[in-house]
């Protein structure tokens, strides 16, 4: 199929590599090297979308990331890419491109009625209406929601994965236009490690469409030569198709690299992206400038295009974006476009120049070519609906100059430096009256060069780039003494621009004149905003939604600053610009997430017995990063049945639990006892070696932080067990006190959590099992009493065995090196078979400990619970200070009606109370209903044959036996219960001593 607007020759497209994609189902012919936008233009497609609010027809405006209109949907299904810019998306075969925000078709969009209603839906109209009747708001909102939005999210999970790379370099050069290339070359010249990035598919930037020559080569050829030189240079990384989207503190720069592929399974041109996280020593910012649009009525019509973009399409893509052009400018650059169009055989019917006396080299050349130039003239109106049909000119004082037929209207309001990255990092900038824009000043480690620094002339940009590259390398500590050569260019001197913000006089009243094309923010909207007092630039932005579209207002914001300044009669410098936020161009969430998804989302920690648990059919629960065996259902068993079986096995025979996840800290040194005295509530110095003790650790606020058993290994060594989830926090807490507050204490802390696995053997037959597995430790009750530990061998493996119990049964916690733990576990299971040994999981562990009234930190406690609250006041030493002690005497800590740990027994023994259920004295319908507390743990106790629960109840201990009611959570029922002592089973603790 023909490409009616493709030029016969020129451009950097590969005419030997034709390809085809579709737009709204129509085939579009293109060449390798095209963007979707250039191909659409070549095929004569000018209508690409509908605007966000008014659904007005819109066309391509730019040739880059600043385009406010060219948003399209790419592909379907799981791999679809919503809201991609046609101007930066490379044309590839199999690409399926669709319009967004129009229905049923782009040409006949039902929602375009909004365009007709535009006079009644100005900025912020929704704040003033849709309030009545109140109950209708959800309906109104439903309509608003469905009218808004742009593209469609994928409808299935993303099948693609995204790569992340950390990178370091001496000099990062952002932008590979003339200044960036010169800078990278100068920096590389010193031997520095250089990374050069550019968002376009090939380096060169404006050179790729330039008329000028550099070092006696055509601009594009010079760019190619330097690119080749940099590619070959060691230490230089060249990243095309890569957008620097964020500059953060510490000069961290985030890059998004688009990975282009033609794979048939790829619905889009971007089936992968790679995020680079670069920490450069110095940054050369060569991000260029954005051409500013101009205001006139219907300045949003398809066919209205930035002059520089026209040049780019003509020279770089060999596309004529129209067949007859009018240009409207306030500076010299549009004349270059006029010459480019003329060269390409596209007639330029007129140039309207705001300046009364445009006399630079380029205007002279244009005049010499016979292009009609209208000095002191402006475009007041664009005619045509689906596309520009004519531009109506008038003089600055409003005198009509007639309508000139055209299908292409090139505009140039000057250039605004793309200082987004610089500003994100809070780099300083100032209003440059010569540019009529904000321009950056050098910041910490940041060297602006070229157009971003306000240098629009090629020769000067090359010089500035070279200097910036050298300076950055030197600041990074690289220099080879010799100055790099500055490339020479033959560009022409430019005449100054004449700022043009508001059309003069009554022209400014014409409607509609769009300041922000994407958000449909018009000049009238800005006026309304200011009229209603929203004058601060941030207020204007928020009230009108100026600059809030996916284009981030790249074109709109620099224009708005000038317009607002003129409307308010103020200096643009004092108006400022909305704060620049990352990202410069949008970046997909998946690319930002990188490979931290799926199985790599977060470490899953498992013990050496994991495979055994899996083979035994265990169900698992997540406890922090750990995956722990929860219960071991046998075929046909419910969770409840499995847990009941496991509980009874421990109570009557013997069970085995993988308790390896507990934190374990060795505390070594002559002052270890003193240290423990300070961090635990009870006394430690006099604990004899070989013995264990339960300890409570408080925060300085007096609230329980952690608990566990600590054993004295020998004179100068203790081993502390922490709860699973507190293993790391407790170690950090102890180190903090030791290092910052008590450096005089001679104590070393070493985590041994991972070296020692912990196997708990619990139940009346556990001693026999341990003996059968083989151990050299004497096991008789008096040889190895409760709350002691022994070292020896178990099943041939060196072990530390602790006679401690979290179940209330005779129990051994057997610590063995993790690399042999599986062997010991299997040996114990084998030895236990004749005794009916049963593996049990965390759920059974919880039931057993609840039967004994043992607390779990984080379940019975919640950061607002003191030791006395849970009945552990006896562990508070009166004879010494300890962390948190002082807080326990504050008025609230000694309040008599604090919540206290009690047991609850339901009237119906089969009724298991809901955990989290709240407890009241007397049920009733009134709300709020005074509450006494809540159920912290609740289970069916198989050994007791009834339900049990632990609860925190105000004043609970003093009133044991009182009648209470627990609310259910799903239905409005009340479950009667009586409070009781929280130890339900073996209250004397006889079983653990046998």
């Amino acid at each position, binding site marked *: 199929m023909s490409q009616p607007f493709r030029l016969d020759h020129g451009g950097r497209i590969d005419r030997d590599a034709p390809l085809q994609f579709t737009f709204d189902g129509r085939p579009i012919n293109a060449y390798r090297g095209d963007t979707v936008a250039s191909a659409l233009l070549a095929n004569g497609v000018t209508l690409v979308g509908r605007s966000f609010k008014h659904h007005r027809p819109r066309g391509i405006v730019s040739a880059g990331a600043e385009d406010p209109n060219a948003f399209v949907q790419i592909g379907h299904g799981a791999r679809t890419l919503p809201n991609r810019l046609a101007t930066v998306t490379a044309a590839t075969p199999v690409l399926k491109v669709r319009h967004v925000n129009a229905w049923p078709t782009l040409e006949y969009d039902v929602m375009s009625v909004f365009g007709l209603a535009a006079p009644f839906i100005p900025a912020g109209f929704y704040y003033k209406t849709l309030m009545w009747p109140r109950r209708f708001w959800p309906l109104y909102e439903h309509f608003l929601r469905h009218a808004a939005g742009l593209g469609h999210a994928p409808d299935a999970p993303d099948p693609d994965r995204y790569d992340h790379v950390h990178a370091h370099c001496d000099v990062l050069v952002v932008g590979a236009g003339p200044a960036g290339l010169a800078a990278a070359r100068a920096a590389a010249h010193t031997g520095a490690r250089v990374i050069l990035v550019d968002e376009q598919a090939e380096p060169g930037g404006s050179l790729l469409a330039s008329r000028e020559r550099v070092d006696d080569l055509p601009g594009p050829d010079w760019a190619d030569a330097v690119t080749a030189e940099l590619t070959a240079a060691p230490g230089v990384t060249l990243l095309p198709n890569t957008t620097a989207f964020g500059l953060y503190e510490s000069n961290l720069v985030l890059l998004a690299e688009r990975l282009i592929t033609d794979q048939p399974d790829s619905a889009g041109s971007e089936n992968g992206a790679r995020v680079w996280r670069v*920490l450069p020593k110095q940054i050369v910012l060569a991000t260029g400038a954005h051409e500013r649009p101009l205001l006139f009525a219907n300045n949003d019509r398809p066919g209205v295009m930035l002059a520089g973009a026209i040049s780019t399409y003509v020279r770089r893509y060999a596309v004529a974006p129209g067949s007859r052009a009018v240009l409207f400018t306030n500076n010299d650059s549009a004349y270059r476009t006029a010459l480019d169009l003329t060269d390409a055989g596209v007639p330029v019917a007129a140039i309207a120049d705001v300046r009364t006396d445009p006399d630079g080299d380029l205007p002279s050349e244009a005049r010499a070519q016979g292009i009609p130039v209208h000095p002191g003239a402006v475009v007041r109106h664009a005619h045509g609906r689906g596309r520009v049909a004519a531009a109506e000119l008038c003089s600055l004082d409003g005198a009509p100059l007639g309508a000139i037929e055209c299908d292409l209207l090139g505009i140039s309001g000057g250039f605004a430096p793309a200082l987004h990255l610089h500003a994100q990092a809070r780099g300083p900038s100032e209003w440059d009256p010569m540019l009529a824009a904000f321009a950056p000043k050098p910041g910490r480690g940041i060297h602006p060069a070229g157009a971003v620094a306000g240098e629009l002339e090629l020769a000067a940009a090359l010089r500035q780039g070279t200097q910036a590259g050298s300076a950055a390398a030197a600041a990074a500590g690289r220099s080879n003494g010799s100055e790099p050569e500055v490339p020479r260019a033959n560009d022409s001197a430019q005449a100054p621009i004449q700022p043009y913000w508001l059309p003069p006089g009554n022209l400014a009243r014409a409607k509609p004149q769009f300041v922000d094309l994407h958000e449909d923010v018009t000049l009238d909207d800005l006026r309304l905003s200011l009229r209603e007092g929203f004058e601060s630039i941030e207020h204007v932005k928020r009230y009108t939604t100026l600059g809030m579209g996916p284009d981030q207002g790249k074109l709109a914001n620099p224009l708005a600053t000038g317009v607002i300044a003129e409307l308010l009669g103020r200096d643009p410098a004092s108006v400022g610009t909305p704060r620049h936020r990352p990202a410069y161009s949008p970046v997909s969430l998946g690319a930002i997430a990188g490979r931290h998804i799926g199985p*790599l989302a977060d*470490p899953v920690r498992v*013990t050496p017995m994991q495979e055994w648990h899996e083979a035994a059919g265990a169900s698992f629960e997540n406890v922090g990063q750990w995956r722990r065996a929860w219960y071991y259902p046998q075929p046909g068993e419910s969770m409840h049945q499995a847990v009941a079986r496991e509980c009874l096995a421990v109570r009557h025979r013997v069970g085995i639990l993988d308790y390896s996840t507990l934190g374990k800290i060795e505390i*070594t040194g002559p002052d270890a006892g003193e240290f423990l005295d300070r961090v635990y509530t009870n006394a430690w110095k006099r604990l004899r070696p070989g013995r264990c003790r339960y300890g409570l650790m408080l925060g300085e606020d007096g609230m329980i932080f952690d608990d566990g058993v600590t054993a004295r290994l020998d004179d100068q060594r203790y081993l502390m067990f922490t709860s699973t989830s507190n293993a790391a926090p407790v170690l950090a807490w102890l180190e903090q006190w030791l290092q910052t507050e008590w450096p005089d204490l001679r104590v070393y802390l070493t985590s041994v959590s991972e*070296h020692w696995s912990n196997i708990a053997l619990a139940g009346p037959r556990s001693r026999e099992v341990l003996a059968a597995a083989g151990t050299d430790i004497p096991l008789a009750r008096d040889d190895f009493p409760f709350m002691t530990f022994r070292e020896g061998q178990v099943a041939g*493996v060196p072990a530390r065995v602790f006679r401690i119990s979290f179940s209330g049964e005779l129990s051994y916690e057997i610590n063995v090196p993790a690399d*042999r733990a599986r062997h010991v576990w299997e040996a114990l299971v084998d030895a236990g078979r004749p005794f009916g040994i049963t593996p049990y999981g965390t759920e059974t562990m919880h039931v057993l400990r609840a039967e004994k009234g043992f607390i779990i930190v984080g379940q019975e406690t919640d950061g607002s619970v003191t030791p006395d609250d849970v009945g552990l006041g006896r562990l508070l030493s009166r004879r010494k200070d300890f962390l948190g002690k002082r807080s326990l005497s504050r008025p609230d800590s000694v309040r008599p009606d604090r919540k206290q740990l009690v047991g609850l027994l339901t009237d119906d023994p089969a009724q298991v109370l809901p955990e989290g259920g709240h407890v009241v004295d007397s049920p009733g319908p009134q709300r709020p209903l005074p509450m006494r507390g809540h159920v912290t743990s609740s289970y069916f106790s198989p050994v007791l044959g009834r339900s049990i629960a632990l609860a925190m109840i105000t004043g609970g201990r003093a009133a044991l036996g009182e009648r209470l009611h627990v609310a259910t959570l799903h239905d409005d029922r009340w479950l009667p219960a009586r409070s009781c002592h929280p130890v339900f089973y073996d209250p004397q603790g006889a079983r653990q001593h046998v």
Partner: protein
Amino acid sequence: MSRSIPRRSPLGAIQSAESPAHNGQLAERPFLTHLNLRLDPADATALAAVHRVLGIKLPLTPNTTTAGDDLMAIWLGPDEWLLLADHHQSDALLADLQTALSGQFASVVDLSAGQTVIRLSGPSTLDVLARGCALDLHPSVFQPGACAQTLLARAQALLIAVDDTPTIDITVRRSFAPYVAAWLQDAARHFGLSFPESNTA
């Protein structure tokens, strides 16, 4: 007696009689001796005692190592080192050090079963690590003999620059090893690297 009990590394390797380290580009080096040593570097007596046992001096410069024939001392902190020995006689070395340091304020703790080493070697080593490590490991910065404790993806890791192949040894805690291995495998796939068949997590 304990030597007859087979050991299992966190990445699935089971100790055989020879137990050689795999020479592949991405492989576990299981069953090495890992001892944590704490002492005051100003304590000349303790330093000398350690020197006598190890035959090498402890590195006192942060992020450096010292190496003997089959032993490496790795700086972990101003008063903390990891001793990494190419054999699995942790008991003997532990006992020797404890004897040499007895009566002094020092601590030697065996962590051999709690950690493992993953070796990454070959021209793409640094590219693979750059996927998840924020440090600059460029050979001009991170030379053989250097070490660094840092984060690799979302796990803590100790990196040791072994040679300029480059080869990097990554020491990780046992329970994090499967995650780190899976992560490295994923990052290395692009470069055609994977764990040996018998050694995958």
